[in-house]
């Protein structure tokens, strides 16, 4: 299984439809301070089932919806798609029949968020299990957020054990 594309619409500073191809090897992401690089990482974590607004640097989950600039009005909807290639059929049973799985998460102001797999509504839990089975997901240690590499070292010894549990 591998991921092939991340698409954002109205998510944080990416108000216009944006597509990031995901390919094996090393893809560098560069740009000035404040331009939106870390927002891309948060879009990936969000579509995989992130439940904590604080880990998205917001006070509520609606902080992921584009909240406007001095020249543009705020939006009411944010949407992120992650294209998953399952041609090796390694995804869990609920997704076994698909070659391509399009996981979408969409949030609307005052209406909460929901998930879809290939257009059909699914539970948050199904999505979180899909990614957990792929050793990935919102809480995966392989998604190292900005400034978080030090947290591994500065954490208390009992907190560090959780990284081992991931490998177990």
């Amino acid at each position, binding site marked *: *299984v*591998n*991921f092939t594309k991340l698409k954002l619409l109205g998510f944080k*500073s*990416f108000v*216009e439809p*944006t*597509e*990031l191809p*995901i*390919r*094996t*090897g*090393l*893809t*560098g*992401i*560069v*740009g*000035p301070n404040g*331009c*939106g*690089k*870390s*927002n*891309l*990482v948060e879009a*990936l974590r969000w579509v995989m089932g992130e439940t904590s607004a604080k880990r998205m640097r917001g006070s509520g989950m609606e902080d992921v919806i584009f909240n406007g*600039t*001095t*020249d*543009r009005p705020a939006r009411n909807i944010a949407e992120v798609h992650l294209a998953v290639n399952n041609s090796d059929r390694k995804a869990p049973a609920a997704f076994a029949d698909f070659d391509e799985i399009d996981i979408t998460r969409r949030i609307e102001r005052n209406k909460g968020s929901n998930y879809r797999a290939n257009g059909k509504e699914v539970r948050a839990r199904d999505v979180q299990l899909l990614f957990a089975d*792929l*050793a*990935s997901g919102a809480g*995966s*240690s*392989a*998604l*190292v*957020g*900005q*400034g*978080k*590499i*030090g947290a*591994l*070292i500065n954490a*208390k*010894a*009992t*907190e*560090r*054990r959780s*990284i*081992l*549990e*991931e*490998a*177990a």
Partner: protein
Amino acid sequence: GRARLLDAFELVNERFGVLFTKLFGGGSARLELIGSSDPLEAGLEIMASPPGKKLQTISLLSGGEQTMTAIALLFAVFMTNPAPICVLDEVDAPLDEANVNRFCGMVSEIAEQTGTAFLVITHNPVTMARMDRLFGVTMAERGISQLLSVDLQAAAKMRAAE
């Protein structure tokens, strides 16, 4: 349960030692389960000694040494069960040029072995030059992010002009 955690500990500990020595060009490091005889309650201590230095707890290491040690541990865990994607957001910020090169070398090696897609966010021209492809994020219109694919030749020029 306990047996799985102990197995994981052995595996990660062994790999951690190998990756640490590779990243530091010598020295040694190991993990220890401390504080309780029950692995499910114990804490994970990291003991490290960069080349020529005495073994010590990681709090005495420098900022860059701690980052390199954390990278070794992260990749030791990652290699036990490689994920389809790995994201590293400005992990190279505290590193000097020699360590940036060793870090990039290790990322390349792991990507080749596992086929994982790495997304590496960086401001460091040395890291940029080691990428297979580059995307730039700009805010041509203030407050609005736009993603552009950067031609590597153009990036090389960017680097030469630094």
